[in-house]
């Protein structure tokens, strides 16, 4: 087995039991790591009782997994997963940073965290020395303070472990803010200040486990690949292609804040009421004033597309953020009617400090603002907050309420889908039409109504096993890119922004050189990726306990996506119901699902998933 450290660290927070866990070569060959392996572990351990497992209860399992690409592929991420409190299925949620490398250098391919701690704690691992430590000094603390405390304390502790080492380089840290602690469904698992695994809501899962952070330090090498020369050669060739991505390196995704509004009409504006704007104040050049002039990235990254922004003066002095970043520009900007970089950077900073996911948290602020605009939510409901569009201070105040579940924040903390239901019950109205989500996951800031975005297909979200996750959108034909390719990125675990221009075949060559295991493109698309997709689909349909998705009926776009675009060059454009239904059926068939999108018994058998077939029969999804 090459490319793997060879063992996983399993920690039960209830019993404080710590042990090593291994997986067979067969399991690793089929499920790779990251998202694929997470799905397999969750199915094996929780599948039979999936509908009853509360994602925010002690039964859920939190997974933090690397993949065989971690460390050697240029551009490093780690995959966070578990039963998602947003979709009630499994989402592979990745976050960049050095964490995955530190973990592998410590000798582990990943962490499997079960149970829940009695008191706030964090996990500290320095090579094989693993401890569950008291987090009470930082419980309730925001990002900066949490990180400062953990970095300082951990460096001192590593110095104790290796007293003659010399200067100790800080460990890697994954942590949650108050939004996670308070078990909101819109909380991210955070690295550094502004890197988050947001989709899925795993910040809340950590909070439910009373787990504030995971600290990892590894002194060993990244495990050797099978064919090192080939790996290094390929990595260098991939890097050189990314070095040439001049515009993307210069602006990152941050050129999008203007572009996706003005050019492609696919940017959420005022809770998706429109997807077009041409605000000059939001041009990418306007963000330059706040940019710390350097390219910013994580371990091994050739692209370094991140941009650090700092507000040095003015009323928001002190804000630091990785802005401009497109999703934040949209969800904490245009979608709230905010069109100035300074306010956008400030609100992004507030959201990061609270440990909110910029997308999920931003989406729920947008929902609340539209309900306020329509007079459904009143100033009184909002404890005196006047939630006018563009009122950045009001949004900051409401974000705080969400993260701490104060007042109306307690309902909004449930995310757009659940909040719309709860508020609808209170107000006696159907408010779901204002909730732009797919399977409980607020949709990434790439609308499909204009058809001009790079995510353009009408089934992109409706058919995705990760719901609104724009990094895992479905597309036809099923065996070219789309979700099955996202499964590769999230399972081998690498960053898609460091993989520009790298063909599937090259990724597969890299996989073979790392692991020494053979793989063909056909095997990937027709078998391995499909198997993972089926497991994810099955668990998504099992759902529960609080939400269950009806096959086909809920495999639909949110109501708002059926409204015609009200403005801009694509005014009047919307999705065509008939075309959508045809595409959906085609996708279901291509995946091997029946006309309702339920995996067929014969496909499951072909993929060796007889146990899934039995389970789906048990719950009468398969007749």
């Amino acid at each position, binding site marked *: 087995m090459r490319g793997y450290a060879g063992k996983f660290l399993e920690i039960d927070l209830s019993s404080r039991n710590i042990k090593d866990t291994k997986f067979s070569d067969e399991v690793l060959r089929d499920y790779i790591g990251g998202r694929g392996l997470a799905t397999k572990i969750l199915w094996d351990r929780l599948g039979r009782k999936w509908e009853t497992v509360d994602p925010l209860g002690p039964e859920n399992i939190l997974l933090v997994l690397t993949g065989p690409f971690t460390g050697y592929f240029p551009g490093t991420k780690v995959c966070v997963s578990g039963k998602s409190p947003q979709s009630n299925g499994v989402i592979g949620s990745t976050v960049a940073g050095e964490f995955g490398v530190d973990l592998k250098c410590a000798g582990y391919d990943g962490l499997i965290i079960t149970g829940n701690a009695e008191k706030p704690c964090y996990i500290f691992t320095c090579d094989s020395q693993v401890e569950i430590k008291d987090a009470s000094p930082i419980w309730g603390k925001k990002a900066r303070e949490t990180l*400062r405390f953990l970095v300082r304390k951990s460096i001192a502790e590593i110095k104790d472990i290796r007293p003659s080492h010399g200067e100790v380089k*800080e460990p890697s840290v994954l942590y949650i803010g108050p939004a996670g602690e308070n078990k909101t469904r819109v909380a991210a698992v955070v690295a*550094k200040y502004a890197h988050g695994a947001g989709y899925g809501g795993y910040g809340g899962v950590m909070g439910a486990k009373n787990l504030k952070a995971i600290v990892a330090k590894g002194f060993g090498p990244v495990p050797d690949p099978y064919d090192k020369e080939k790996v290094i050669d390929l990595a260098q060739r991939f890097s050189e292609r990314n070095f040439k991505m001049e515009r993307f390196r210069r602006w990152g995704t941050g050129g999008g804040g203007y572009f996706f509004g003005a050019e492609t009409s696919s940017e959420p504006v005022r809770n998706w009421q429109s997807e077009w704007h041409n605000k000059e104040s939001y041009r990418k050049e306007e963000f330059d004033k706040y940019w*710390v002039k350097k390219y910013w990235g*994580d371990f*091994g990254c050739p692209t370094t597309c991140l941009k650090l922004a700092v507000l040095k003066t003015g009323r928001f002095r002190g804000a630091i953020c990785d802005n401009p970043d497109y999703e934040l520009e949209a969800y904490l900007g245009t979608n709230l009617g905010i069109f100035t970089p300074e306010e956008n950077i400030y609100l992004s900073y507030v959201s990061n400090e609270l440990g909110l996911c910029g997308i999920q948290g931003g989406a729920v602020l947008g929902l609340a603002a539209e309900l306020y605009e329509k007079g459904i939510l009143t100033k009184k409901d909002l404890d005196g907050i006047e939630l006018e569009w563009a009122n950045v201070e009001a949004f900051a105040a409401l974000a705080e309420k969400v993260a701490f579940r104060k007042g109306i924040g307690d309902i909004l903390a449930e995310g757009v889908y659940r909040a719309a239901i709860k508020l609808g019950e209170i107000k006696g109205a159907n408010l779901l039409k204002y909730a732009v989500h797919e399977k409980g996951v607020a949709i990434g800031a790439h609308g499909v109504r204009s058809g001009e975005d790079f995510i353009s297909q009408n089934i992109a979200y409706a058919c995705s096993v990760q719901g609104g996750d724009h990094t895992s959108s479905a597309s036809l034909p099923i065996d070219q890119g789309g979700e099955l390719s996202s499964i590769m990125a999230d399972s081998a675990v690498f960053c898609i922004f460091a993989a520009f221009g790298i063909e599937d075949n090259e990724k597969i060559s890299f996989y073979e050189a790392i692991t020494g295991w053979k793989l063909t493109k056909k095997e990937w698309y027709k078998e391995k990726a499909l198997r993972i997709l089926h497991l994810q689909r099955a668990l998504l349909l099992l759902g529960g306990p609080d939400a269950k998705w009806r096959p086909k009926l809920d495999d639909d776009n949110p109501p708002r996506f059926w409204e015609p675009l009200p403005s801009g060059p694509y005014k009047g454009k919307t999705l065509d119901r008939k075309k959508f239904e045809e595409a959906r059926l085609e996708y279901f068939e291509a995946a091997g699902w029946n006309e309702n999108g339920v995996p067929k018994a014969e496909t499951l058998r072909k993929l060796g998933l007889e146990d899934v077939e039995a389970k789906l029969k048990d719950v009468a999804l398969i007749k």
Partner: protein
Amino acid sequence: MLCSKLCGMSRDERVWIKRNYGNCSGCRRCEIACSLYHEGKIWPEASKIRIFMIVPGVEIPHLCFQCEDYPCVEACPTGALSVNGKTGAVNVDVAKCTACGQCIEACPGNVPHLHPEGNYIVICDLCDGKPKCVKACQEGRWNTLMLIPREKEVSYRTLAKTPVELTHEVARQILGEETAKEVID
């Protein structure tokens, strides 16, 4: 050339790695290049250049400054350290090193560190005059590490600072005085 003649400076063939801290992307491709060259593996902790990130966004590449008076060499009780006549780098004789740590104590920048597995010290050897870290940093056009001729009259020792000292300096520069205080202290 002309300039150095005019101001009366002389130079030898030795090189020096100039660091523009404010530019560092944190890509750590220098750590990768260094450890691949010297260890044949990606091994951040064994790399002779290390990126410190006490504050995210303030990444500090830390490696030997080749002080003109080499306090580390002076301090070593076993004679494990010597100055490479060609490059000016500090060479470590790993067989002689007892990992006593006196060179770390003596270094104004606390640069040397123990090899994570072997019982000896790690110090940049300038890759025999062709630094791999600089190449990695240059090919990605981050312009943080640059190779310049070593000037006889420059005091490199005054540039040798600890990761914490450098973090303070660079944080002030890129975040502003007040914010730097808030994030570090």
